[in-house]
């Protein structure tokens, strides 16, 4: 998203410009989702930016991030701005009001805790395997691991919903991103390692084949697009003929620039 003019006017080093940009981006997204016309979106955002600037001007100096946050918190949630459009249909305020489940929990923290439990569970499980430990303690660790694997994606999904509704704290955005990246990196790798250990490596054969086919497809697809963009379009015999049906039947096998690679 481009930088909004509030922060551009005040200066890119203004305290809390990320908070302002994030809020305005959320409002814009809500308006886009609701089908608001482009002219309306621009005008609403300009009015809102001017309001934020006026509200900040009334605050004591020097401005801190907490002050900017408190000013943003005084504004309405971004979803409320969409209530006037909602793809041409009128909505009740109650319908646009955030649900209790969205505001009651701090889902990014739950996601981070779930991801942490996955990491801790794996570390302890590997230690237990290394020393050959068994018993209820290992079972509890495995349970912690499974809960973390199941709860984290749910909490990430709820965090995204909470952020889109404008109910999450600005710091939670980075927390959700980090959690999602760590989870996406750790869990598939760990599950693969566990599957390898359980099947004595045999699982790697079908997975390797699938991976090979996928990378081969990705390579061919990339090559196709690169060549298709580089090569000039093949001149067709009936190029001056405006009838598209006749053109397509005269060159059935030509790789014209309009041709796209078939998906598999």
């Amino acid at each position, binding site marked *: 998203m481009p930088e909004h003019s509030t922060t551009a006017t*005040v200066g890119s080093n203004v305290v809390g410009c990320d908070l302002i940009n994030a809020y305005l981006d959320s409002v814009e997204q809500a308006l886009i989702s609701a089908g608001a016309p482009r002219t309306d979106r621009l005008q609403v955002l300009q009015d809102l930016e*001017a309001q934020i600037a*006026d509200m900040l001007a009334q605050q004591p100096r020097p401005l801190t991030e907490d002050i900017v946050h408190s000013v943003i918190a005084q504004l309405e949630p971004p979803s409320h701005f969409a209530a*006037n459009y909602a793809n041409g249909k009128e909505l*009740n305020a109650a319908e646009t009001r955030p649900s209790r489940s969205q505001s009651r929990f701090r889902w990014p923290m739950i996601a981070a805790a779930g991801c942490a439990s996955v990491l801790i569970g794996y570390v302890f499980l590997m230690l237990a395997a290394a020393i050959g430990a068994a018993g209820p303690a290992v079972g509890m660790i495995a349970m912690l691991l499974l809960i973390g694997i199941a709860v984290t994606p749910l909490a990430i999904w709820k965090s995204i919903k909470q952020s889109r509704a404008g109910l999450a704290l600005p710091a939670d955005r980075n927390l959700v991103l980090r959690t999602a990246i760590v989870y996406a990196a750790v869990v598939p790798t760990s599950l693969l390692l566990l599957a390898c250990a359980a099947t004595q490596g045999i699982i790697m054969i079908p997975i390797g084949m699938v991976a090979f086919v996928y990378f081969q497809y990705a390579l061919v697809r990339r090559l196709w697009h690169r060549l298709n963009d580089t090569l000039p379009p093949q001149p067709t015999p009936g190029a001056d003929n405006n009838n598209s049906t006749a053109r397509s039947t005269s060159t059935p096998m030509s790789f014209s620039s309009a041709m796209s690679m078939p998906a598999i």
Partner: protein
Amino acid sequence: MHSEVVPVASKTIPSNLDIDQWSTQLRKGLAELCVLAAVRQLGEAYGYQLVQFLTDHNGLELTESTVYPLLARLAREGYLNVTSAPSPAGPPRRYYQITSAGKQSLDAMLAHWSAVGTSIQKIICSAPSQEK
């Protein structure tokens, strides 16, 4: 024949009538009138000034999420003129003025509002005498 009389109203209207929802719908219907009237009264006003002016009036609860999209729509439909002027606080402010089409529309709305208000007042005032 009838052992007991059950009040019709108590059976058909829920006891917990959602006043909030009713008042929201009422305000939504009157938002255009209020915004146009506020712009005409102030002569020329920027968005935040209008929001503050409208929020100063109890019961209206017209906040920025209602006022700004409404201003944008009224400007798009030619009821308001928009001019931009620099602001000491930061980005330029957008000043709204009512157009002749907006004034005509506001006059029509006010006339209708007056008629509706009179009718409602008559109904309310005549209600106790009909019970007798």
